[in-house]
């Protein structure tokens, strides 16, 4: 999981496609391109429509594989989900700046909402397990949690329908004061809330943002997000930002 220089691979082979819940899948691809936690790839597994590739975070990396955890949202992810073992996928990556792991010290909270859990497995692997608490919120059935538990990480689950763990949002059981650093990924309103709580508590927080992308490499400027330092690019300056820099609710 050392940082490697990005590449475009036209036909990477699908090693496996696992369906974890109704709409969440794990795709494992043979590629040596690697990546660090929080980095992402642009994926494309169709011929014409949709036009653009889709950004998906690195979920796990081994020497010669990269895996992705993703939720079917629209046409692009639906087509990704149709990939079968042996199929081909075009990918560019690893791209962007991931989590600043040098800044992750002391008691670390990883707060995620839904598919925001995707980049956290490879992150948690790099951290001392005893120091890490994952607070993961889901609408309903949780996913990708068992593998974190296997790392001996402390995992607390919330579900909106109460089918598992605490009923409610993950932010309800997240108290920033008991942590030294926080990492978050999930829907914007959730991350905004986490960022707000952390700011109040004076705890540093890194947030992995999303934006619609075209190039993924910083060339087209469509993925900008407003920060206190001006517009930044989610793909090239991020996707991970210091939450205090981001202008939430812009």
């Amino acid at each position: 999981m050392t940082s490697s220089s990005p590449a475009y691979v036209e036909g990477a082979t699908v090693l496996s496609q696992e369906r974890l819940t109704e709409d969440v899948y794990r795709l494992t691809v043979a590629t040596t391109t690697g990546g660090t936690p929080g980095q992402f790839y642009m994926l494309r597994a169709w011929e014409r429509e949709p036009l653009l590739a889709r950004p998906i975070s690195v979920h796990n990396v081994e020497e010669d594989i990269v895996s992705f955890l993703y939720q079917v949202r629209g046409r692009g992810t639906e087509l990704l989900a149709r990939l079968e073992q042996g199929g081909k996928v075009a990918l560019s990556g690893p791209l962007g700046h991931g989590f600043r792991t040098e800044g992750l010290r002391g008691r670390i909270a990883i707060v995620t909402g839904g598919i925001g859990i995707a980049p956290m497995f490879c992150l948690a692997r790099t951290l001392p397990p005893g120091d890490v608490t994952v607070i993961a919120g889901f609408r309903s059935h949780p996913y990708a949690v068992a593998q974190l538990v296997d790392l001996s990480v402390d995992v607390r689950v919330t579900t909106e329908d109460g089918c598992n763990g605490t009923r409610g949002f993950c932010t309800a059981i997240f108290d920033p004061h008991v942590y030294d650093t926080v990492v978050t990924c999930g829907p914007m309103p959730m991350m905004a809330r986490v960022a707000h709580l952390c700011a109040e508590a004076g705890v540093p927080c890194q947030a992995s943002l999303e934006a619609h992308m075209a190039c993924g490499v910083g060339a087209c400027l469509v993925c900008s997000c407003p920060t206190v330092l001006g517009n930044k690019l989610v793909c090239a300056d991020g996707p991970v930002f210091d939450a205090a820099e981001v202008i939430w609710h812009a």
Partner: protein
Amino acid sequence: MLETTLCGVTLKNPVIAASGTFGFGAEYSQLFDVGRLGGICTKGLTLHPREGNPGLRVWETPAGMMNSVGLQNPGIPVFLERELPRMRTLGTAIIANVGGGDLEEYIEGVRLLSNADGVDIVELNISCPNVHEGGMAFGINSEVAAGVVGAVRRVCSKPLMVKLSPNAEDITAMAIACEQAGADAVSLVNTFKALAIDIHARKAVFDNVTAGLSGPCIKPIALRMVWEVARAVHIPVVGIGGIATWQDALEFIMAGATAVQVGTATFVKPTTMLEIIDGLERYCANEHLTSLATVCNILGTVPKL
């Protein structure tokens, strides 16, 4: 075989990265050897830095995409200091694309670029549909355009290429007006002014309401415009709009383009331009052409206007 001369500048080949889709070249050099390209048009530059537009900036459409970047750029002085030196190491021709909010900004911007070592061609963008105060306003009416081009021409010692808008009232008249005002070449087209509505939110997808459409969907219209313009002017024409394959590029060349620019297709597949270059190379070899000029502007059955 593919070597091409564009207003006195020798390009390795006629395949150029389109402005605003290729940053300052270094971004994509992570993914492929950009030194193989015929040239790179910079992101649209303005004298003063710009933050670009707020809100969503990209939206997909059938076989196309809309963007509303709005000329976000660091300003020409910062470009010259920080980006140009790095661009010059890429080993390909550098075309500085310049926009502006008013005539003064155009003139001042071009003056700076014109004096810079390493800028091979200045591409005057009078056609950006995403900036309220200017840009496209200059690209609609031929007389207005001629005014800007004439003024800029006087301060520009570099070859001057004018980038035309497909939203122009009459793109042929526009091209002729630019030629007469001193343009050394024209490039076309920029994006089409387009609209997308979020029916759930009951409002436009983009804060600016309209945005610029690019990609394969516009190719048939862009190709028609290139053909019309190439028949009407005597300066070189650079074809742009939805080019995604070497066959597309060849269509533009046959319609009269000396070179082509590729934008959106690079997002779809980063190595598109390399494939276009390879494809044109193979085509020339198979057809025993010593130069693409042989097949340029061959819809010549219809007489030059």
